[in-house]
Structures are given as C-alpha cells and as structure tokens.
C-alpha cells in the first residue's frame, strides 16, 4: 500500500511567477531577535522553492519519445533541469548527442562513462568526444494528469 504524508497547506495566494524565480522565504544572514511572525512562516509552500535551487541555471524542457518510460519519464512530461550541478554517474541528465538535446541516464561501467536509456532497444552511448556533452542534470520530473 502507498502511504501519503501531509506536508502542509499549499499557498492559496501564491503569486504567479512567470519565470523559475523562487520567492525568497529565507531569513538567512539576519541576526537579532527572531520576529514573532516567524512562527507563521513556512505554512505556505512554494514549488519553486523546492524544485528550483538555482533560478539562473534552471530550465524547463518538454519530453518527446518513450525510451525513458522505465525510469519514470514519459512523453509530455516536463523536466526541471539544473545546469549548475556537475553530473555524477547514476543521475538522469540532459545531454547533447549529435546536435540534439536528449534525456539519458549517466552511467559508469568499468571506469568508462556512458549515456543509457531506460529501454534495452537503445544501446548505451560512450561519453567521449565533443559530439556528446552534458547539458544539465534533471532535478525533477513533472507528470501531469487529466483532471
């Protein structure tokens, strides 16, 4: 059975942000007495705050194709891609292969680096030359349902 945990109430009056620029809710860097209002902070949730860590380096991409289905990425999904993260093996990344932007899994096999898809029909691509470069690291996948 799948259990769900309630995280909090979503911000009903969340401002609509046209760009992936999060509301700054943090109070980092300020010293002194805590504000009495602080108790009420964080009761509204902003998805930008959770998924967009570096607004200047975050891009949204739309998925076409089905090869990543087994890894939970489907046609029509939206990827939240962060270019500020250095890619590590095991991560889902966006890469440039033959001039095309594709989503792959970054893997290391016997000290060699590969890009593989979730579908065994597609052979892993060795990550060696300039024809194949990392574009960004996928932080999240947005899969929307019909409602």
């Amino acid at each position, binding site marked *: 059975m799948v259990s769900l945990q309630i995280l909090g109430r979503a911000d009903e009056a969340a*401002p*609509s*942000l*046209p*760009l992936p*620029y999060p*509301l*700054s*809710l*943090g*109070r*980092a*860097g*300020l010293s002194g007495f805590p504000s009495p209002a602080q108790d009420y902070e964080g009761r509204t949730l902003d998805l930008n705050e959770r998924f967009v860590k*570096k*607004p*200047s*380096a975050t*891009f*949204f*991409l*739309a*998925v*076409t*194709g*089905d*090869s*990543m*289905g087994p890894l939970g*990425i489907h*046609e029509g999904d*939206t*990827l939240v891609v962060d*270019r*500020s993260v250095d890619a590590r093996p095991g991560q889902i990344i*966006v890469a*440039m292969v*033959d*001039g*095309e*932007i*594709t*989503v792959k899994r970054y893997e290391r096999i016997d000290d060699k680096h590969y890009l593989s*898809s979730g579908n065994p029909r*597609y052979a892993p691509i060795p990550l060696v030359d300039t024809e194949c470069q990392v*574009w960004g690291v996928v932080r999240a996948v947005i899969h929307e349902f019909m409602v």
Partner: protein
Amino acid sequence: MIGLVDCNSFYVSCERVFQPRLRGLPVGVMSNNDGCVIALSTELKAMGITMGTPAFELQHLVRQGHLHLLSSNYELYGDMSARVQAVLEEFSPGVEPYSIDEMFVRFDGFSETQLLEHARQLHHKVRQYTGIPVCVGVAPTRTLAKFANRAAKKIPAYRGVCVLKSGTAETRALLQRFELGDLWGVGRRLVERLAVLGIRTGWDLAQADPKRIRQQFSVTLERTALELRGISCIEMNDFHEPRQRIMTSRSFGKLTNNLGEIREAIRQHGQRGAEKLRGQASLARAVLVFLKTNPFRPDLPQYSPSLAVELPRPTDDSREILHAAGYALQRIYREGYQYQKGGVMLIDLIDADRQQLSLLDTPQSDAERQRSAKLMGVMDALNSRMGRGTVKFGTPSPGAAWHLRCANLTKRYTTRWEELPAVTAR
C-alpha cells in the same frame, strides 16, 4: 578593479543553447520582418558577411545549406541576459548592466592571483549555468576593462579572461598593438583627426598630454586618455558609447508597489531615452524594460524581472517606444513586491540616415515618417525651451498582438510554457 563581461555573439549563443546543432555553423539573426542581419556568429563573419546585410541577398546561401538565418527572439535574449546577470551577482555585489550583452562587475579587495582565479571562475560559471560563452576583461578603469575584454576576445592565449594592471609591460604592449578604432569612445572621424597628430594606438593616446587633448578635442577624449593610464574618471552614468545602446534608469526614491507610480517612472525613462535617441540621430530596434527589488532587504521577497520587446520597425518615435515599454511593463509587473528601481534600455541602435534599412523592415509611408519626425521635432524643441516634461505622452495601454509574423522565429524557450525546448527520449 572593475571587470567587463561581454557575451560572445550573444543572440546566436542564446539560440545555440537550445539548438546545439547550430554550434560551429554560420548563423545569423535577422531584424524584424526578417529584413537584414543584425547579429552574426564568428563563422558567419568569417564568410565576409557583415551587420546590416539584407536577408534576401543571403537566401540562396540559406537554400544551399551554407548558413542559417533566424528571426530575432528578443524575449529569449532578454531572459538569458537576466540569467547571466544573476550569475554575476553571485560573484560581486556591484553588477551594472551596460547593454543586453555586456555587464560591468566590481572586483574589490582581491590580490592579483586571487583576482585572475576569481575572473576565471566567473567565466566558467556563466558558461556552465546559462550556456552562454563570455569574455572577461578586468582593469583599474572602465576604459581599460573594455580594452582588456577586447584583448581577451581577440587573443586566444588569454582563453577568454584578461586581467590588466596599469603601467605594466603587458598593458603597454597591448595598447601599442591595438589601433584606436578598437577603443571604446573613439569613433572613426576622431581616429582620422588623431592620426594627423601621430596618435594611432591606445598607447599613443595614453602618452599624449591630457590638457592638449581636451583643448583640441573634448573633455570626453581627455577622460578616455586618463582612463587608459589607469586613472579612473568615468562613472557608469557619465559614459556612453554613442550608437550602441541608451539606458535610462533611476531608483524610485522609495520602495513602491504602486503600478501607477512605476508606470509613470517607466514612461519618463522611455521618453527621455527617445529624446537621447533623436539627439544622436539613431533608431532603436528593441526596448528592454526592467524592475528591481532591493537586494539588500533579504526580509522582503525578491523579484527582478526584465523583458525585451522588439519594435515593429526601427524607430525614434516616442509613441512607439512608450507603447513597447508599456507592454513590457504590463507583462513583468507583479503585485506583492516592493520595487526599488526601474529602467528602460533602447537596444540594437542603427543610424537614422540609413534609410534602406527602414525600407527593408516594415514599410512606413514617407508621409507618415515625415509627420512623425515633425511631431517629435516640435516636442523636443518645446521641451528644451520650456523645460523637460512640458509636452509628454501618457503610456498607452497595450494593444493586441505585438509580434509580427516572422518566418524563422525560434521558440521563446524560457518564458512560455507552451514553447519549452523539446528533449527527446530515444
């Protein structure tokens, strides 16, 4: 020390981030209605094609697959510019945008080796985060920083980063190597007049007697000469390179979220910018509007949006510029933020006398053009005689569809949900 960060072939680089197949190929970006080429990749420049070339002259090369032409996509360029600026702001508290693709960055309190390391990191981070390649020039003055940037771009050994100190052999050798036409603030006519006096290189100008330069030329050139020696005397708002871009901005005086007040300020900036434009006989192709909250108030929510809007045709008409600025403001303004500053930047300027360009862009009847020129002339005359603001326009509310149809328009990848870049899974 101050740095100048300049994006390489900015418009083309923005397109290449989302279309990697265009990397290494000759690519041009066209003006409104696909009239002429306004931005070129280095590969396209190497083919001998220059800025302003009419697009129809290149169509046979496009058909043969020798080059790629794209319609301009200012919304994308404006957003990518804001991203580059945001990355720079992580490195320095003093970032001043100078144009859509150039920014000054303050570097204070670094040792010499630290500074080079810092500039290299910045160079790398902007490329990694945004995908935009940049060159970085760092020096004691703005003029030298611009010069260092030029060197970083032209001399491969610098690998995109050049840090110059005044009075070193390196600076001297570079100044001797570059002709005056390469220097910022020195136009072509001036170059010819200086050559008569034997002043041909940056080094010659730096060595010339500043008083004599002022007497025979201008205070502006005297300042350039002093700045080349490393004596800082040009502040951000003092200098402008004519015919490149016009920026009018100011802080609101107090934090405000009042749209009426902000609209009035943007209107003033737009009108002032249009006056400057007419004063230097230029036309603008696009208008960029920005707002800024106060970054030194981390207790307040931050939102610093900007939007670039292409004009229907290159123009110096206040009405068209205010219309575009009003539209851009409407798109970026959000309630719930305390804005500190706002401004208008007129970008991609061309000389007003290059009539063939405006003919190639959107046709405007001669009668209409003359009427517009007459109206603007009367307005400028009244404002200069009876005080600024005697005659002014209200900001028109935004009309319907803004963009003209362009054949090779790329997607607004970063600002529209329905135009996200596609990523293939196969």
